[in-house]
């Protein structure tokens, strides 16, 4: 696996826990909900309220959108960050938001609680170094063409700058399958757990790109041992400016959280906490 001296799991098996507001990541399942993009004041505040009522523990939303086409909605920028801060003021939910430009890092830190590095920026090393200098928790998404080794090396970049608060997030990779938007690689959950001490989240919304598949893949992620889920929720998905086909309605979100929480409690049983078969690759 190369030189992963900071990321790899130590002999003592100690795992990273990250406190964000009143939420402890790495200790029980963390559900993050919110729209793909921050589009307007009404949409943001309304969705944040719905995420809170539905049982979400953190709010996500993009103010800077790295889009496939330069003509697509690029996000509200600073205005979006201010709206996210307002949503936190109203709901008390910590804010997860993506940063795509090293020049924005300190400013996003002023408004957000967790910095997200998107899949398209996973190997943007100057950006990784910049977020590594901040000390703010970083949610590092797996690049859509990246191997586990490349992904963990990117986490190593952040830790090497002195920021130990890294959360990995699997969001699906490119395969020859076309039915789903991406192929959600759930095997990464136990793989990351046996190799590293870092928490891992799953993003079934991008991972499948299909509303009908999100529920089952969320449950599967919890069964696999994920530390958190990133779910796209929009107060009115049909009007969303991006990812309209994969955003849950507030009702769907609330119902899903109920199911997930129940399974999560079941999985907390000691029987499921330990593996029957061990002996993975050494890093």
């Amino acid at each position, binding site marked *: 696996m190369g030189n992963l001296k900071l990321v790899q799991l130590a002999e003592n098996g100690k795992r990273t826990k990250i406190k964000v507001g009143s939420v402890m990541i790495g200790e029980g399942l963390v559900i993050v909900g919110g729209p793909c993009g921050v589009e307007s004041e009404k949409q943001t505040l309304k969705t944040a309220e719905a995420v809170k009522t539905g049982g979400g523990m953190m709010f996500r939303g993009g103010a800077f959108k790295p889009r496939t086409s330069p003509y697509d909605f690029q996000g509200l920028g*600073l205005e979006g960050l*201010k709206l996210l801060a307002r949503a936190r003021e109203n709901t008390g939910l910590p804010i997860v938001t993506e940063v795509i*430009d090293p*020049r*924005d890092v*300190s*400013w996003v*830190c*002023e*408004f957000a609680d967790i910095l997200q590095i998107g899949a398209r920026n996973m190997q943007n090393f100057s950006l990784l170094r910049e977020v590594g200098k901040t000390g703010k928790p970083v949610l590092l998404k797996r690049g859509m063409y990246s191997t586990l080794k490349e992904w963990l090396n990117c986490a190593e970049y952040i830790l090497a700058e002195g920021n130990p608060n890294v959360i990995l997030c699997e969001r699906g990779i490119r395969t020859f399958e076309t039915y789903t938007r991406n192929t959600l690689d759930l095997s990464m959950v136990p793989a990351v757990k046996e190799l590293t001490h870092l928490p891992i989240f799953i993003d079934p919304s991008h991972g499948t790109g299909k509303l009908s598949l999100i529920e089952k893949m969320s449950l599967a992620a919890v069964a696999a041992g994920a530390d958190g889920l990133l779910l796209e929720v929009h107060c009115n998905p049909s009007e969303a400016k991006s990812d309209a086909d994969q955003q849950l309605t507030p009702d769907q979100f609330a119902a899903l959280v109920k199911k997930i929480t129940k399974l999560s409690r079941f999985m907390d049983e000691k029987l499921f906490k330990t593996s029957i078969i061990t002996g993975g690759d050494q890093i």
Partner: protein
Amino acid sequence: MKLNEVRQNIDLIDSKILKLLNDRMEQGLLAKRFKEQIEDSAREQEVLEQVNNNPNALIESEFSESIYKLIFAFSKKLQARELCLTGFQGEHGAYSEEAVRHYNREYVTIPCTTFNEVFEGVNSGLYDFGIVPVENTLGGNVGPVNELLINTDLRIIGAIDMPVHHSLLTAPGTDYREIREVYSHSQALSQCRCFLSRNNLTPIPYYDTAGAAKMLAETKPRGAACIASKLAAELYNLEVIKERVEDLGSNRTRFLLLAKSNQECESSKCSIVFTTEHKAGALFGVLRLFAEAGINLTRIESIPNEPGDYSYFIDFDGSNKEQVVLDTLDKVEKQTTGLKILGFYDEKKVEG
């Protein structure tokens, strides 16, 4: 140039026109303080002549004359109302002005360049009141104000203890990523030191927070921002990049309202300043009087007069209706050399 750019310019000019009209009305109110009566047709004629002789190509005299007649009428209407003028140091949008609004929204605030100007204006009767900051939780005491309190004969008639929230402001259209330098009063800059260093911003001291906002709006230096109140953002048409950039959540400033003479009002606090003889236990002797009377002291400050010779400020809880307070002050007078009672007044605490 596009239509929206032209419109941006128009908006900017309109906000300047309104600001200048406000400044002109203020001067009218000040002029009234020197006049026997409001009406002065000779002066009006003089102004109209100056206005009609202006070299601006598009402004015809018929137009300017009609505008100025409206200005005269409104100015005289304002002068007819017995408005209370309150001097403050700084430009409009300064925190001192916000403090006045918390005290009484009806008071008209007049900007002064220096604290000295505030004190002199109140003393000469140009202003009814003056407002000055006296201490801040992060920045400490405001030295020049304490000196002026010793050296002039103004009375404290009220105090306002107010939270101070700073905002980072820029001229509209400035990219926040290009901000390098931040202008503000040195006190405000010191209250936001961590914020500035986190974002790699260079602090540049300026004479006043709102003055920095005004300068930004007028000269639009590249890559510059200022730290001032949200009120300043509204007044000078600036964009709020971030609110509450102060490092400490509980950043408060205490302001004193000054007048030429004591006012009959409910009081719960008293401020005094005194000097003592240079002998062992002199200051202790004074403090003991308050302790024995069970009077709670809320501020003690010593200000050097000459090396080794100090004036002491003491604020305490107490009213001029309480006999024990009056008796204690009698005793204090005997124990000190030069006691000055700065005033009995009520202190207003603003939450938030």
